[in-house]
């Protein structure tokens, strides 16, 4: 590829030299016989240049695109490995722009910019050397014209970096605002705040407008400067060259070749500005991509596997604190769940229930103590092994744009039709069979939309289908109506009979699925016991769950 590039430039430089020979040789001396061979030489050089350019472009496509594709694959793989904590902080739009726009910018620079930069510099230096050898005083003049270009390019680059980053950032803010107002359109409408939101948007768009204008002004000055320098140089060459010809130090043919060559420099110098700007943007993009790729996945699987999982779950002095947070979310949590036992976690809003459940499949990691499954610290287990033992149904049911069947078998590709039916029956989700294409109906963002309750039931079916030894239910039934909830609970009882269960519960009815209840208060477990006992003995527990406590009565007690 590079060979083709270099040879191509050589051919391009040689052509005007042949022109010189023609003017100084045959034309000057009236030598008609020499004209044809020289003309054919020019033709051959021209064809060669085109052919070499073709070779270069054709062969460069594969490596450049290969690189882009490989980085994108790596980025995706890496992102899938990064823990929830990372994804909680990064908008998916931010990640997307890195995987698409930034990588394309890098590709364009590599496929186009770098090559042109190198070729331009190569062409500039070779032509200058040729010019110096042709007639050194003029050559020196041309070489000297590079000095202001270099100085100014340097200055321009610094300001350009600053301003293009500012534009990028402001565009990012604008995009974030668009995202928010698209997602929050119901709230905006509910409060009739369209004008207010539009005004905020106008403000942000106006910022982008002003900074973009500043960028236009800056680059217009620089780009024009780059055009002036070679043209003025050309005028100087003409002046001094003509004087030299007049003085007899230079032949006419050399002057013609000289001016042709100098004119050949106009394009490389002019395009230098664009290429430098492109390079700058590629650098910024590379920084942004590397920022993600360099994030170390804190949660990495160990080497051990649970050969025959029994589902013995233990929290041993577990603590969890967000980095930089003053107070821990969880502290000194001790809890033992025997194989086959089901424990309900009850606690007020914000008491750390969801974090506790996320520790088991290692969606987050403990910051103190340890969680063990069948005696293994979860951090020593390989992630596939751990996550096949533990299945979770989340409060927010995530379904993907694929068939119902694929959504259900997410955790277990080898599930049979009977197993799927059983799981759907447990979750009261047999409605799936009545969808237009049954289990092959496409759902999710790109497919059929389902109600919140339907989504939750499918997510539950997915968790049960894995037949996991440990089943974690994080307030999975909140969107179901009372009757459906009762049916689901009835069916879940059978599943939880032989699996180990960890169930986050807000309602007494859900608590009744469990053998024992753990009360979570201020990040730690204060009471463990049977529902009836806690209800009788622990007032905080009663306050949390005794829904039938008559409001007036309670008010009277105050």
């Amino acid at each position, binding site marked *: 590829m590079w060979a083709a590039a270099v040879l191509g430039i050589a051919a391009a430089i040689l052509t005007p030299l042949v022109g010189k020979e023609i003017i100084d040789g045959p034309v000057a001396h009236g030598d008609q016989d020499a004209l044809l061979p020289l003309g054919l030489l020019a033709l051959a050089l021209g064809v060669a240049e085109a052919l070499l350019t073709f070779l270069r472009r054709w062969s460069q496509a594969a490596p450049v695109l290969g690189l882009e594709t490989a980085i994108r694959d790596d980025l995706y793989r890496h992102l899938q490995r990064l823990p929830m904590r990372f994804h909680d902080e990064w908008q998916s739009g931010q990640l997307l722009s890195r995987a698409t726009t930034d990588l394309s910018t890098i590709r364009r620079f590599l496929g186009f910019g770098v090559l042109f930069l190198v070729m331009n510099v190569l062409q500039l230096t070779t032509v200058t050397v040729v010019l110096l050898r042709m007639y050194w005083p003029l050559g020196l003049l041309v070489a000297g014209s590079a000095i202001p270009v270099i100085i100014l390019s340097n200055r321009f680059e610094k300001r350009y970096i600053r301003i293009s980053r500012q534009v990028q950032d402001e565009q990012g803010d604008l995009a974030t605002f668009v995202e928010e107002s698209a997602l929050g359109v119901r709230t905006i409408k509910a409060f009739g705040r369209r004008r207010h939101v539009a005004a905020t948007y106008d403000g942000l768009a106006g910022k982008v407008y002003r900074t*973009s204008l500043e960028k236009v002004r800056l680059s217009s000055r620089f780009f024009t400067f780059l055009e*002036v320098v070679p043209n003025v140089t050309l005028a100087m060459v003409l002046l001094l060259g003509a004087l030299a010809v007049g003085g007899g130090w230079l032949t006419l043919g050399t002057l013609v070749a000289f001016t042709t060559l100098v004119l050949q420099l106009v394009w490389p110098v002019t395009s230098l500005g664009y290429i430098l700007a492109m390079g700058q943007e590629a650098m910024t993009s590379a920084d942004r991509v590397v920022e993600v790729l360099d994030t170390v996945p804190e949660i990495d699987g160990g080497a051990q596997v649970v050969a025959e999982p029994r589902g013995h779950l233990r929290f041993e002095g577990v603590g969890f604190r967000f980095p930089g947070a003053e107070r821990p979310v969880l502290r000194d949590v001790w809890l033992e769940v025997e194989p086959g036992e089901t424990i309900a976690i009850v606690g007020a809003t914000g008491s750390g229930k969801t974090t506790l459940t996320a520790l088991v499949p290692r969606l987050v990691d403990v910051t103190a103590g340890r969680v063990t499954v069948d005696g293994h610290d979860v951090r020593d287990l390989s992630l596939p092994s751990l996550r096949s033992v533990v299945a979770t149904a989340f409060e927010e049911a995530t379904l993907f744009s694929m068939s119902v069947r694929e959504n259900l078998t997410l955790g277990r590709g080898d599930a049979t039709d009977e197993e799927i039916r059983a799981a759907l029956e447990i979750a009261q989700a047999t409605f799936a069979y009545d969808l237009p294409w049954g289990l092959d109906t496409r759902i999710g963002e790109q497919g059929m939309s389902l109600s919140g309750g339907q989504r939750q039931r499918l997510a539950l079916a997915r968790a049960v289908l894995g037949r996991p030894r440990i089943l974690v239910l994080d307030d999975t039934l909140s969107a179901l109506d009372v009757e459906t909830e009762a049916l689901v609970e009835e069916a879940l009882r059978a599943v939880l009979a032989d699996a180990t269960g960890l169930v986050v519960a807000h309602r007494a009815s859900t608590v009744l699925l469990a053998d024992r209840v753990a009360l979570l208060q201020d990040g730690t477990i204060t009471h463990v016991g049977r529902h009836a006992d806690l209800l009788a003995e622990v007032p905080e527990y009663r306050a949390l769950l005794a829904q039938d406590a008559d409001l007036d009565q309670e008010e009277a007690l105050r």
Partner: protein
Amino acid sequence: MSVEATGDGWRGVAAEEQDHLSDRVSLLLRTRSRRLLGDLLRPHRRGMALLVAIIVLSSAAGLAIPYLVAVGIDDGIPPMLRGGGPGTLFVIVAAVVAAALTQALTRQAFLRLSGRIGQDILLELRRRVFDHFQRLSLSFHEKYTSGRVISRLTSDVEAIAELLASGLDGLVTAVLTLVGTAAMLLLLDAHLAVVALLPLPLLLLFTRWFRRGSSVTYRRTRETVALVIVHFVESMTGIRAVQAFRREPRNQEIFERLNQDYRDANMRGMRLVAVFMPGVKLIGNVTVAAVLLYGGWLALHDAVTVGVLAAFLLYLRQFYEPMQEISQFYNTLQSASAALEKLSGVLEEEPAVAEPRHPAALPYAKGAVRFEAVEFAYPDGPPIIPALDLELPAGQTMAVVGTTGAGKTTLAKLISRFYDPVDGRVLLDGVDLRDLDEAALRRSVVMVTQENFLFSGTIAENIRFGRPDATDEEVVAAARAIGAHAFVAALPDGYDTQVGKRGGRMSAGQRQLVAFARAFLADPAVLILDEATSSLDVPSERLVQRALRTILADRTAVIIAHRLSTVEIADRVLVMEGGRVVEDGPPQRLIAGAGRFARLHRAWVESLA
């Protein structure tokens, strides 16, 4: 799928989802895009005319330089060789410098002016599309996902920005250079010019071949990248489930396959350019060789001067360089016209719930709601609400119960005018909702739903959302009334705590409390709660319910709930089934009876155990 060749199936955003468009529809879409473009450009007519003048001047100056060099060689040097002075030469060199400076100055003026016009157009387009999206009804947003809204306002707008910023400049310069150069060549020497311009038709044919090919590869690239994006976004937003269910290897497999398709499409594009660019170069170089040969022969016989020959060689270089720009321009143009097509489609969508032309006055709403023979159905769907008459006196609190799909949420959305009835009317204090302007309606009716969207910003800002002029004391008072004060005050920064991305740093229950405070502060005459307490734990729910008793005392309220605990504070219960009211009365009377509500209530009491 393909759009029907007749009818209005292509209107609005419908064409976005079509794979194949009939010729007639494509034509209609192109006309629509052009109309939008014309609309955007019209205010800048003068600026554009000025731009054309500037660029003609700039190109003329640029083209003059090689010509002046030729004149310098032919007319400036011979007098000196004959022993004369360099006077002519100086004049010519001065002219070259002047031309160079003119070119530079006009070029700068062009870049600035075109930059400003481009940015003006972008700003206008951004504002227009954003405002239109916000104006479109909920029913539109329910179908048109937020992801699509975002890509319309980011990547599509950027595609047009790209066209305005560099594409047009490149094309105009290239075309002017092409035409100007040809003219100069003819002016210098007609004979030689014919030889030099002979390959031009070939060049045009070649360019047409390239344009066709690139429009095919371009479409393929867009299609493949769209699939990459969809898969990427979906796996990142659902990463919790991906990791919990060990979906990573299969995801990686799918992603790599999509990525490979995208690569292949790009490869085709790059290879096409790899043929086109050297092809142009080949034509150019062969022409240069031919001009050298023929021109050399002519010079030999003194038919042309050496200067003219030199000028020809210089011009031919300039002639073929801009072709590069043209190949770039096609891609920019295609992505911009695709973007324009989609944006014009969005702008063509009419809000299903339109603002009235002559709004009725309703300075102060008392909150009496009336349904008169209201019928509601989604387009082409079965009726959700067949025919509903309902009278809700001001100040009454009504609970609505029923199974999923009974039409409860539709009822709520009709009162808050997120939907308009297909038939019949919904009245507030005797005024048809469709006659109220948005400000008056939203001041009077507020709906709180299960999804409690919080905007990034502080908790105080979020509570103040419905009433921006509320004082800090009023914000705190609202939070206190709803039982949110305790948890907010416990946060390190209190009311100034940033809620994080979409309220992500708070639990669902906390978000719900903030949303309640927000609705309470807005102080509407009619408050609608659609499953608004479902994420609260029991103590918080109880607090909210206690607060509701006071809050709802002097306003009309509609409460939709699965949990019957909420129902207890209602004056009246409405049991719905299949869009119809099956039971209606005070809760005590219904419980005492033997109807559906009595059964539901018994089941609920048992579940509390």
